[in-house]
């Protein structure tokens, strides 16, 4: 059965300029047949609006600034404000301590990916949670 491609929106919140990680993930998701849109820097509000407009399945962001908890909270707050909290699978990646993983999940992140993540695991996670495999 043909299904529509999984659409993923990726962005960097804030000012931090460590781009390598998220661009690598973006490329890997594209290679896996997903439609990956990398926004570069974007405000959380802008991202939520774009996610609604573009009808994406997944929102992911990358933090190397140590402000991962703050950004996760802000994203969830904004989704709630717009009344679309349950509409997207939420992913966060980057450099942060393992002991924060549970806190990130508690805040509302579905997938938490620290340093050393294999991109295949992110692909598998998205497919499993969305319950579908895209056909390229």
């Amino acid at each position, binding site marked *: 059965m043909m299904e529509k491609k999984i659409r993923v929106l990726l962005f960097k919140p804030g000012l*931090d300029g460590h781009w390598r990680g998220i661009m690598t993930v973006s490329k890997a998701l594209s290679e896996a047949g997903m439609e990956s849109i990398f926004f570069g820097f974007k405000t959380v509000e802008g991202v939520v609006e774009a996610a609604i407009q573009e009808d994406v399945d997944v929102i992911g962001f990358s933090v190397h600034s140590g402000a991962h908890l703050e*950004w996760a909270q802000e994203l969830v707050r904004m989704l709630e404000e717009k009344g679309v909290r349950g509409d997207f699978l939420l992913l966060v990646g980057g450099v942060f301590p393992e*002991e*924060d993983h549970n806190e990130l999940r508690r805040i509302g992140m579905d997938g938490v990916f620290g340093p*050393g993540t294999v991109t295949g695991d992110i692909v598998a996670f998205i497919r499993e949670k969305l319950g579908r495999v895209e056909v390229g």
Partner: protein
Amino acid sequence: MKRMADLEEIRRGYEDWRKAKENWAERRESFHTDAGIPVKDLYTPLDTEGIDYLEDIGFPGQPPYTRGVYPTMYRGRLWTIRMFSGHGTPEETNQRWKMLYEEGETGFSAAVDSLTFAGVDPDQEVHGAAHEVGKEGVPLYSIRGVEAMVENLPIDRMSVALVVEPLTSAAITSMYFNVAKKRGLRKEQLAGTTQNDILTMTIGYIPWGSLKPADLLKLACDLIEYCTAMGEAPRWNPINFTTYNYREGGIDAVQEIGMGLANAVAHIDELLRRGWKIDDFVHRLAFHLSAHRDFFEEIAKYRAARKLWYRLMKERYRPENPDAYRFRFHVQTAGCSLTAQQPMVNIVRTAYQALEAVLGGCQSLHTNSFDEAICLPTEDAVRLAVRTQEVLQEETGVANVIDPMAGSYYVESLTRELEERIWEYFQQIEEMGGVVEALNTGWLFGEMSKAFNKRRRDQESGDEKVIGVNCYVLEGEEPTPPFRTNPRAADIERERLQDLRRERDNQKVGKLLDQLRKVCEARENVLPVVSELTAAGATLGEITSVYREVWGIWQLPFVA
């Protein structure tokens, strides 16, 4: 006298040896360096054929400087232990610096937070900036921040590196000079470095709201012009071409140095275009290189880089000052080689990389702490990183002799090979119009993204081994207790700015900002007015807002 074998005899011997081992299997089909240079099983005098000792290797402190830029190297003076450090607030950073000083650090280096890097104040409503105050480094938003950072530190006797890029280099450097002035020092006395690297801001670490490459180049050259050509701070290194930051993106040793040389040429040519003579400034240009995974290739890289800089100067610019031919560099061990898994292994990685830098003749060195793939380093971790350098200095004997790798058939051969490949890569950038053009077209970033995507594939396929990640994995590891930055940092810094805005002469600041606008429009050197601004208490965000307003923000060519 004993008769020495000639090359023909060695060649025959080598062939015989190869035949004799024909039936011995090797563990891989082929071997190559990190940069993809094929590695033979054995190097002999045949591989250094044509390398002339006097012309190609020479003596330390003499052309072509392959063996080192100074005649005595570490026998005269050990390299500077310079730890890149900063967190929370300027006061906390000051405490950390004092601790490092007591532990034997001999130079300081300020790691700034993402706001300082991007030139944003915490009370500007930009992109939720306040979340990131003090998290990645020290917040330096005004002269008061810089003053608190260096309080009671012997800045007249120790050099300080300000790791900020062209967007904020004039502001932060002038804050530092103005603090020194308040302490009764003249800026002529100050030794130190501003990183001031355009490629860091455009392909390495690309902060929010970066300026266009040509405007960044202008700002970078303004600082070189002011400090060196105009003689305002003659002992200051007004730029440090930070090839380390591009290397961290995944490129190889050839690309690292090739991009570095092309970057330097862009600045030199811009200053010549402004009417300065090469001898007015070129002796103060410095570099900051990576120490990466491939041990021998990195050592050969440092040797090749020195030689190439000499060649560039001699063939193209011909300065009279002999110092201009010396390729001086700081080294940072490769952060991207560290893992969050089994972090103690990072101590071992860092020690080998530090040894590369020392065998390669660096002038100063930062060693990463073992927890840096997780968070900013704890005190214990950073102390151990300092000790790693002290073991090299005090216990190993490696600093007792100059360039001990010279004469190694392998290292000499690799030095020559790298030299050729780097020069070719550098020429390729030159032919497309130099780094500014290569940035505008997105070519340089394309090189970066090709490299980091390849590394990802190589690591995931296991072609590039990473211990703890794709081999020798340990299940059920205990998480490493992380270092946490001050959660009140944003409030503290906002208060610091509020006090400053209340106490300063706002009218004067306003007038000076108008003046800066005119200077930017006329594309004159920003340093004189920025110096006045920071002395009068203008904030970083106020200054960079003028740049952004006049010149506009760069639309990155690689983000669709």
